[in-house]
């Protein structure tokens, strides 16, 4: 374990790139979790699906990259909405609790990952999406690509747009209302079903955008969704607030921590750092306090 300080500028840049990415994924996941209460592991399905759809449309069908990108995001969005409509909602209506929905979600993820393996060949189903005008830049000894820049700009644009939507538009306020108190929202006449759909559509679209970027930056692989969903979990759970900007900043922080760990450790240890952070956080965070307070609140107000 030797300190490699000269790597700092490059690692910091990588951290910002990955962190922005994590922030958006965490935001999509957090939006779904906090508004609908679904423990949506199948976020991974949406992500993987979008990447493969983009590859298939662009490379196999020959549709221009930009249109393939757009269609993939639409498919991602639809897949999220359908998961809610076809799987989660009937389950919830039948009394399936958080665990039941999580398990169904787990089942979906297993199905999707292995169907992709079966379709694109079991050994190497890896497909990369080409066609983006990839250009490397070197600024002050730090290297990044035009794709990285596009991804970071897209990420923060989406975060700010969502923040604006939630705070300043009527629909955004309705979403917030359902998040804070779904029952009260229903009582005052909000159609919470429609809000769930909207939230799944937005959250899944966010995943879709970055799945396509991932297919361009690295490649589409069958288990890409699960890895990224785990990170989205971490970001969503560690975010101190539910506001888009604070979720995104949590993602950024996580990306920086992960990347800067490269100053001390080799890159393959990065997951240990990310999940180690989560582990420590979950072990130490004042859950006790919050839980106890919630219990007391329930007893006092019942």
């Amino acid at each position, binding site marked *: 374990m030797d300190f490699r300080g000269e790597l700092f500028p490059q690692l910091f840049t990588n951290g910002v790139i990955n962190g922005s990415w994590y922030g958006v994924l965490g935001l999509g996941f957090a939006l779904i979790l906090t508004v609908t209460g679904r423990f949506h592991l199948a976020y991974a399905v949406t992500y993987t699906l979008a990447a493969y759809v983009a590859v298939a449309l662009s490379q196999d069908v020959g549709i221009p990259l930009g249109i393939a990108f757009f269609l993939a995001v639409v498919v991602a969005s639809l897949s999220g909405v359908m998961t809610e409509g076809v799987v989660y909602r009937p389950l919830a209506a039948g009394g399936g609790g958080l665990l039941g929905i999580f398990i169904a979600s787990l089942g979906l993820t297993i199905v999707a990952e292995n169907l992709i393996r079966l379709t694109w060949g079991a050994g190497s189903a890896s497909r990369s999406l080409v066609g983006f005008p990839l250009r490397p830049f070197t600024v002050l000894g730090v290297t990044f690509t035009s794709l990285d820049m596009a991804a970071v700009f897209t990420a923060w644009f989406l975060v700010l747009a969502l923040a604006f939507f939630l705070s300043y538009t009527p629909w955004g306020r309705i979403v917030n209302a359902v998040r804070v108190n779904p029952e009260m929202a229903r009582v005052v006449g909000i159609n919470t079903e429609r809000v769930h759909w909207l939230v799944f559509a937005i959250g899944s679209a966010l995943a879709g955008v970055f799945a396509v970027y991932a297919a361009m930056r690295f490649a589409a692989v069958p288990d890409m969704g699960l890895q990224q969903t785990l990170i989205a979990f971490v970001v969503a759970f560690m975010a101190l607030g539910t506001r888009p900007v604070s979720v995104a900043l949590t993602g950024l922080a996580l990306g920086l921590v992960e990347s800067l760990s490269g100053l001390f450790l080799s890159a393959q240890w990065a997951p240990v750092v990310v999940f180690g952070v989560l582990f420590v956080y979950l072990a130490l965070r004042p*859950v006790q306090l919050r839980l106890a307070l919630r219990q007391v609140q329930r007893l006092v107000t019942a």
Partner: protein
Amino acid sequence: MEYRFDIANQVLIFVVLSLSLNLLIGYAGQVSLAHAAIAGIGGYAAAKLAIANGMDFVPSLVLATLMAAAAGAFLSVPALRLTVQHLILLTLAAAVVLVTIANSTRDLGGAYGLVGMPVPSIFGKSLAKPSQFFWFLLCVSAICALLYWRLADSPYGRVLRALREDELAARAVGKNVFVYKVQVFALASAMAGLMGALWAYYLRLASPVQFNVTQSLLLVTMVIFGGMGSLLGPVVGAALIVVSSPILEKNLDIGAEKAALIRLVIYGAALVVLMRLRPEGLIPEHFSFRRALARLGLPLPGAGAAAGQQSPPPAAGAADPAAPAGPGQPDAGIDIAARTPVVTVEGLRKAFGGIVAVDGVDLALRERVVTGLVGPNGAGKTTLFNLLTGVIPPDGGTIRLKGKDITGMTPDAIARLGMARSFQDVRLFLRMTVLENVMLAYSRHPGEHLPLLLGAPLATSRAERRARELALECLSFVGLVDKAGMLAGGLSFGEQKLVAIARLLATGADVLLLDEPISGVDPQWVDRVALVIRALPAQGKTVCVVEHNLYALGQLADHCYFMESGRITAEGSLQELMADPRLIAAYFGA
């Protein structure tokens, strides 16, 4: 032949792995996605010890088991107070970390794993062939299955299920939930570690793919498929899933790799469908082969034991349900001040942020007196109960129970010392039978303590009989013996409140705090519940009741405290309090 033994060996390993996972998920309600990783600790430990240190087969198994148990106990500490979703996330994180460590450490063989383990042998006999390994594995699995059965289908398993249903309620009847959680994590992990080590020896290899997150998910699938919390479910689940792979391979004439993928697709889809149609799994928790046979119209083995016969005829208790009489009046003649105070509270204070919920309360609960606590909503009555029973720590003041300072003790410790409470929202263990709900409260049951459960089976079964008798007595006291075999979730609200009182009685506590035992109950049940409560002092109980139903409280309470804005502002009989126009105004809001 060897091919069949090979499959049988895989089945055995996965059966024991999913049984141990069922202890965690199905019984204790602790969803773990790190079970394969924990098994991996056992596998890697055995492999490393055998390859690098040349350790023999059996000692390395023992060490591997212990290491996995230690890892499980370590994992349980942050898990102690997490909600289900946080626990899922935590165990997932632990699994990813462990697999990554295995993948990236050169000393652990990296992605290839530790290869070249020696051929295991026992008493000089080699276990190289699957058929040779089988018999040894069968013995070990049988021992694990017996241990599992003893843990699950026993007073110990009953406490675990209570944890799963409602932790706070389990603490309220005196169970130290922390100890149980650590134990069950350690035990389940020990079994997993042992199986991981055996698997490594069997394949002569410990590699990341054997123990990765996908394997953990597969184990969860097996448990859920078979039926969470059912004794035999995981056996069925694991066997079906393991065997299906070679069957697919043979019948579809496809490669092993493709068969494995198709199998996963099928099971993933089946999970989704199962959650929709049969969320309790193939063999549900309360499945009985007898009842299933009866439903199919088949003759019952051991004839004569009809379903529902379990509950003995209702004993003529103090409150026979058939008794038409309304509630009695409080004994007019008792001299409250002459009774010894059992619980004394001085200067009790609790603030939530800026809101002072309990503000310097002094009160005394006297022996065999029913004390009422009245006051408007938000007066701090429930907070007071929570302080008395240790659910929340007070900011100041003291609470004495029979002269002993109990301020700051945990709910379970206070319950064991003899003060127990019921809840406004009842909090029965809904997926357990009424009888189990009440039996659980029996204190000092040797069968709830691991060493005694395993070491003193006779004392355990004697205590179990006593617990059963006591529970039936308590149920007959509230007039619900005939419901003993029903699931608590199937009772009406009024019945649930009565079972809650029976559960309180069974704790053996002398001081009972009843939080709104009557509110929200159907009118025809009000008198019955009141009658039961009225009969408690004669059983030697000191009772404190929070209740909004003034009609009922008038029948019940010998003495009342009036509480408003966190303070006790008046005391006396209910009639006296209600004669004060100021209190009436405070109560009903003027």
